[in-house]
């Protein structure tokens, strides 16, 4: 009987012999990666040793501040900034995306200009700009009303404005991508069924685009939790501002920055967990990893099949 090529065995065994069933297999050694790993662990331990024993950080001061009411209200405000600006940004993003896809060149280019400007200038600059808006627009008047910008634009409103206007630009691109991912035939069918363009957008295109848009919105939200710390430059009383206020009095700078960092870590970890759950549900219902989605239509198909356990053909 001919032995197939590639079945030739190690020296000392005759070619006819089959390998013993319980043959020991020794994987190739990963010498280099283990050496690197050991060096890195030593480095980390060394740095930790230096920090802990250096005497620069008064560790015992940290725990009391973790649940300090001032810090907690900062956490609360950071959450408010995050979610309020994300909600406003989604609304703004939808409007900008629809304008960007408009056939009217003026509308499309206005949207393009907005996105270009707000993505092209630093958020930090935008925050400071809104905070100082009363310097060049002292008041606005309409009808008999005169609004003093100084009282209108508090650190809170300046921060919220800057965050949501800036985020709207990023959201617009995400939403535009989602709208373009919806098959054109869907809008065409709605048009043929006598839907107005607005009805087509609201009832047919947007609901289908949402499925594509949700995961990146999650990423943006997590990112926004940390980005809100930028508003501390206008003393907007977020978590970082509160930590700064405290260490300005007692000089426990590192300690309070650690407290703030712990809270940011907790918040982003929780948000990542929520995002993981949402995306798992989404991808389970989509039946596969959404990153390698072949087409939106077939994704939806899987979604429906999963959710209703139907006898899909």
């Amino acid at each position, binding site marked *: 009987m001919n032995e197939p090529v590639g079945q030739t065995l190690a020296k000392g065994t005759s070619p006819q012999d089959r390998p013993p069933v319980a043959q020991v297999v020794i994987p190739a050694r990963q010498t280099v990666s283990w050496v690197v790993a050991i060096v890195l662990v030593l480095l980390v331990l060394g740095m930790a040793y230096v920090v802990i024993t250096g005497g620069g950080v008064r560790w015992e001061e940290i725990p009391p501040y973790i649940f300090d009411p001032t810090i907690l209200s900062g956490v609360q405000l950071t959450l408010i900034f995050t979610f309020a600006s994300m909600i406003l940004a989604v609304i703004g993003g939808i409007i900008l995306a629809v304008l960007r896809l408009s056939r009217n060149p003026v509308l499309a280019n206005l949207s393009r200009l907005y996105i270009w400007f707000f993505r092209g200038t630093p958020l930090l600059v935008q925050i400071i700009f809104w905070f100082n808006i009363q310097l060049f627009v002292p008041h606005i008047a309409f009808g008999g009303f005169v609004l003093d910008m100084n009282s209108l634009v508090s650190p809170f409103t300046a921060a919220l404005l800057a965050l949501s206007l800036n985020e709207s630009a990023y959201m617009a691109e995400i939403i535009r991508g989602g709208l373009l991912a919806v098959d054109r035939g869907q809008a065409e069918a709605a048009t043929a069924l006598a839907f*107005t363009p607005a009805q087509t957008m609201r009832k047919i295109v947007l609901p289908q685009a949402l499925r594509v848009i949700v995961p990146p919105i999650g990423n943006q939200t997590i990112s926004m939790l940390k980005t809100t710390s930028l508003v501390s430059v206008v003393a907007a009383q977020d978590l970082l501002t509160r930590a700064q206020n405290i260490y300005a009095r007692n000089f426990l700078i590192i300690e309070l920055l650690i407290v703030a960092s712990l809270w940011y870590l907790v918040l982003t970890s929780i948000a990542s967990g929520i995002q993981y759950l949402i995306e798992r549900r989404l991808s389970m219902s989509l039946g596969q990893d959404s990153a390698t989605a072949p087409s939106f239509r077939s994704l939806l198909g899987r979604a429906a099949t999963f959710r209703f356990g139907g006898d899909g053909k």
Partner: protein
Amino acid sequence: MNASLPLLRAIGVRKNFGSTEVLHGIDLDVDRGQVTCILGPSGSGKSTFLRCINHLEKLSAGRIVLDGELIGYRERDNKLYELQPAELARQRRDIGMVFQRFNLFAHLTVLDNVTVAPMLVKRESPSVAKATAMELLEMVGLAHRAAAYPSQLSGGQQQRIAIARALAMKPKLMLFDEPTSALDPELVGEVLAVMKRLAQDGMTMLVVTHELGFAREAADRVVFMDAGQIVEEGPALEVLNAPRHERTQSFLARVL
């Protein structure tokens, strides 16, 4: 409207895409209750012509008149003014359309696919819309799939739903744009059966198709188009059995 006039009149319909003219002046009348099949090779402008009828495509010249009403434009001082989207939408209520690729709404159940337009566009109450929808689903033989999503259905089933969806608006005219071309061969029959049933019930239908069998059995008239023009037109059997024009003859010989 005058019942003796044709339901649909296309007069000198021209269409350019850029500098290329794809329709070179189409004249066609469709009488009430009549089934007209448009045959012709790919790229002959059949689908484009169909899409001009409900103004999915703007005309470059000519006019479409449905039941005495100019579609897509308002005429004043010998000029045509294109209508606003809301007015176009109102005119499209009378024209149902079935697409080659079905285009069922992927995020809606079968039942919602059929009820969404009557409820949204005609403000029908949910109960009325649902009753009509179930009747139509019964007619296309898919009432038992009302809760399914389009992706759970075969192509043939999806196309039957798409027909029910268009009928739910109670249109005066039904347009079919190659309704069986995207189907597996064994699924073509079920869709054609629904269309024949519709024809027998007296629906006015304009069907772009490659199904000569359907044309032979269900069509009153057959129109043969080639290179953006109507080459030959007449009673279905006459055109199919004894085509006069040489291009029709060679096309039919190749398709059969």
